[in-house]
């Protein structure tokens, strides 16, 4: 009883200030969605390649309990992993497609440039990477669908000479907007 009286008295004093007009959760929440990746394994004796894999866009919001209002993508990255051939200093050309709409042209970069995760939109690589703005819009349109679809990610390209054995990790970074 004494503890209840004491606690209740404290709460009453707090209530006085709460009545001063404190509103919480006044704006929609913006979250970074879980990064979603797909691994494309390239293994060919040729010097050209064309491989694809899928990404389930729903993976960006699977951990959210809140009601999702919309999603946007703010970054797409590439990373070369498990490279056995060619050498890291070998230049290559590559084209990245999402559902058959070209997102990016990569020309004249070496594999070394992607041995750490690299954004396709980074200013430092602007002269080597051309972004198709229509593809960015197309991806945003897919992210507005409910339920979120699974999209096909295709990588095509060529190197001076084969064989080619490496993985390309494509990662999408999204933001999730929830209802207030």
């Amino acid at each position, binding site marked *: 009883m004494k*503890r209840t009286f*004491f*606690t209740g*008295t*404290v*709460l009453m*004093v*707090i*209530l*006085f*200030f*709460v009545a*001063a*007009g*404190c*509103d*919480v*959760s*006044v*704006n*929609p*929440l*913006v*979250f*970074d969605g*879980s*990064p979603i*990746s797909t691994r494309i394994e390239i293994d060919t004796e040729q010097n050209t390649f064309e491989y694809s894999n899928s990404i389930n866009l729903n993976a960006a919001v699977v*951990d959210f309990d*809140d009601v999702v209002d919309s999603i*946007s*993508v*703010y*970054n797409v990255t590439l*990373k070369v992993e498990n490279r056995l051939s060619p050498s890291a200093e070998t230049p290559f050309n590559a084209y990245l497609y999402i559902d058959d709409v070209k997102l990016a042209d990569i020309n004249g970069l070496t594999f070394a440039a992607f041995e750490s*995760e690299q*954004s*396709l*939109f*980074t*200013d430092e690589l602007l002269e080597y990477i051309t*972004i198709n*703005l229509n593809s*960015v*819009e197309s991806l945003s349109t897919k992210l507005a669908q409910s339920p979120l679809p699974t999209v096909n990610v295709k990588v095509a390209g060529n190197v001076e000479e084969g064989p080619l054995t490496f993985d390309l*990790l494509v*990662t999408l*970074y999204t*933001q999730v*907007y929830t209802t*207030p």
Partner: protein
Amino acid sequence: MPLYTKKIVSRASLIFLLVVFLFSSSSGQNSIEETIEQLSSDNVRGYIQPLLDGFGANINSGFPGSARIRSSGLTFRVQFVGMGMLVGDSEKTFFATPPQPFPQEPVETATIFGGEGTTVTHQSGVRYKFQNGQVDTRILPFAVPQLTVGDFFGTQLTLRYVPLPSISDFPEVNLFGLGVRHSVSQYLPVTPIDIAAGVFYQTFSIGEFMDSKAMALSLQASKTLLLLTLYGGVQYETADVNLSYTYTGPLPPGDTSDRNISLDLRGDNRFRVTAGAGLALGILHLHTDISFGAVTVVSAGLGFGI
């Protein structure tokens, strides 16, 4: 520092506001927690800094203001003190840096007390939006009970103690504070005013998420005219917060960072000037004051005793 470090700050900040907004809706409480989870380790500090400043300034407020401490006599007073940081424009925005691939230049955007977060657009067409503000308030409130006893050789002791047990999902909350004030004017020749110096130390913890320590050194002066006491003072203060949490959410691909997080934060308020007034009506004692420092804090108290 990776994305997941935001979660510890989010939980502790949520609990900050649970203590002071105990009647907020449950959806509001969860939103504050999840909101702060999504900020970068650098941006999260700017986003919640006003909240830390408010907490630190509040907890270092509301101490007895009258410097009149007798060489001997009996003072025994129970007070209920409410305080609140005034939220102005300077508490509503800060400069944050967007993530890659956006230009790494600071952008002015909303704090937890602000409006909508700023959206930055890359030349490729992709956009990034900073977190929106989540608390619309003119004042950040706090409240404590305190006991003041004295007067022993011109000295008074002030005690604050709030043990709140764990309730449902809310963790245990503990506040303990001890202050000592000593009359300086008793050593001086006849003075028209009373002068006292004080030191106050407080600890505040919330479950296993947050530990904070606050310290204040003050010099006070007052003048009593019948029932009315006018007082003022200067104070140096600190408020340090440690947030600890084990992140259990998803990590970016290939990220093997340590999930045990410990983050040390400090309120920016260091120095304040206070002016106030008190009214003694028998065993009923009222006081109110305003303090100016890095932030502005108002407090008011209701006391019973002698």
